């Protein structure tokens, strides 16, 4: 299992590296429209062919991977940080802080994830520039996705706060801040790491769903969401199986994440 996990990490690193080298691997760029070769088949020039607008599919896939694989971890880091702040505060301080934070967590977790995301996304302007749409999409994921990690971190913090070494440290006169930074946080680091890794695939899938619904990253900037939305034209896809490349890549990436850390299936 350990070797499988390492292989998955290496594969993910390889995919991310190629996404970072998109400019070099696919110099055509993601937005350049080659009007003389729309919907072209794979060739030495265009490894994955072109779309109906004559854009290089490989370039769009690589740039889209760059967007999704860079910003989903950023959103996951934001959600984990917010979740850590809320969960650890609730679990460590207890009392009314715990009660009120737990209520807020319940509030966030009571709404089905996609309904929540859709409602808050609709509150913000819909016709925005592509870069703004990227910011809005992933910032929303990060800002709204904190409650799941917070709930887990709250119970972990409560558990650790009641451990013998914590009671002993308190009995020896260790201050609250020192207890938090020297005893609680180091012991919560593995839980934090798991929450971070678990949030990434959830956010990738959420962005894909939002993209499918036309509420994710705006064209012409590619992301896995709007690349997958291109599969809606089933007749075209059936005749051109290479168009399934974004789906295959998404599957590979998600499988890698599943191997790296087992998913909490009901989290979102």
């Amino acid at each position, binding site marked *: 299992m350990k070797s499988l996990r390492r292989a998955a990490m290496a594969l993910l690193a390889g995919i991310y590296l190629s996404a970072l080298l998109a400019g070099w691997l696919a110099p055509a760029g993601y937005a350049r429209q080659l009007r003389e070769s729309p919907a072209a088949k794979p060739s030495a020039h265009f490894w994955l062919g072109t779309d109906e607008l004559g854009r290089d599919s490989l370039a769009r896939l690589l740039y889209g991977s760059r967007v999704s694989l860079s910003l989903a971890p950023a959103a996951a880091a934001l959600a984990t940080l917010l979740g850590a702040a809320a969960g650890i505060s609730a679990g460590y301080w207890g009392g009314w802080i715990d009660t009120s934070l737990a209520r807020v967590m319940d*509030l966030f977790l009571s709404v*089905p994830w996609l*309904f929540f995301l859709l409602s808050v996304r609709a509150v913000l302007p819909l016709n925005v520039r592509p870069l703004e749409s990227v910011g809005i999409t992933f910032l929303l994921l990060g800002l709204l996705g904190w409650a799941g990690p917070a709930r887990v971190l709250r119970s972990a913090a409560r558990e650790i706060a009641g451990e013998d070494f914590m009671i002993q440290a308190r009995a020896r006169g260790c201050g609250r801040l020192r207890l938090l930074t020297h005893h609680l946080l180091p012991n919560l680091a593995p839980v934090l790491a798991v929450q971070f890794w678990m949030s990434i695939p959830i956010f990738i*899938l959420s962005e894909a769903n939002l993209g499918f619904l036309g509420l994710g990253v705006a064209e012409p900037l590619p992301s896995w969401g709007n690349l997958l939305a291109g599969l809606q034209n089933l007749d075209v896809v059936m005749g051109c199986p290479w168009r399934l490349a974004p789906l295959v890549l998404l599957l590979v990436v998600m499988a890698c994440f599943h191997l790296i850390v087992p998913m909490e299936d*009901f989290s979102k």
Partner: protein
Amino acid sequence: MRARLIHSFTTVILTVLLGGFIAATLVRHSPGFGVDEREFDARYSQDSIRRIRQEAKASEHGVLADYLRFLSRASTGDLGISAGFRRPVAALIAERFPATLASAGAGLGLGWVLGMLLALAAALSRPAIDVCAGALAAFLLCLPSSVLALSMGLAGRLDGNQAAAAVIALVIFPRVFRYARAILGRVANAPHVLMARARGVGTRRLVWAHLVRPCAPAMLALLGVSVSVAFGAAIPVEVLCDSPGLGQLAWQAALKRDLPLLVDITLLVSLVAGVSGLAAEIVRSATAPS
């Protein structure tokens, strides 16, 4: 027990009410809120537009007052008029809710039955089933629900509601299977189960008395969560399978920025998810061994 249930029910209601208030505040402060379409009509003079704005401003009484007024109207079944659809919100919801309820219900039932049966078979030492069902569950968990909905388009023979139910089942199945497999696997290797097997207890009795019943409380705890997952999946599924349910309505409301309608739908779905969680909790408490 009774006090706990009343407390849980009150918590659900308060959570929904608080959620509604936060949503109303968000809507009130969203860009473009309160802008009247007539303001963009070239036939209206500057003076008319100024008066339209004044009338709109006069009808606003602060978020809390408006929210309380909305709640009092909602208690009589009046949820207001949808700006995007120009129809009463209550009528729109009443029209669409049954379709979502039917597809989510059928999907949940199918997903749970499939997940539980395969988890049971896998737990009862059927390695081939374990590997195949595990691989299928992992594969399905890697796909967004929208892609699953698209695959139903390839299948082609199902109508919108049936396709939506099938996709929701595919979303629910892997989650139920993996959770049930983990719990049943643990129980199946417990000493009392091995003893029962050694004593020649029949498969039916073994499954019911020694596997399903002890695991029921833990599985029931998941029922409420799975309702929330099913309703969440309903949005892309109903949009792509062309099933006229609440998910599709929510998506249309989002595209039209019909925020009050969207908030009403979200609150209704949260209430359904909250109440199903509560119902699962009641059944769990009733069936849990004392």
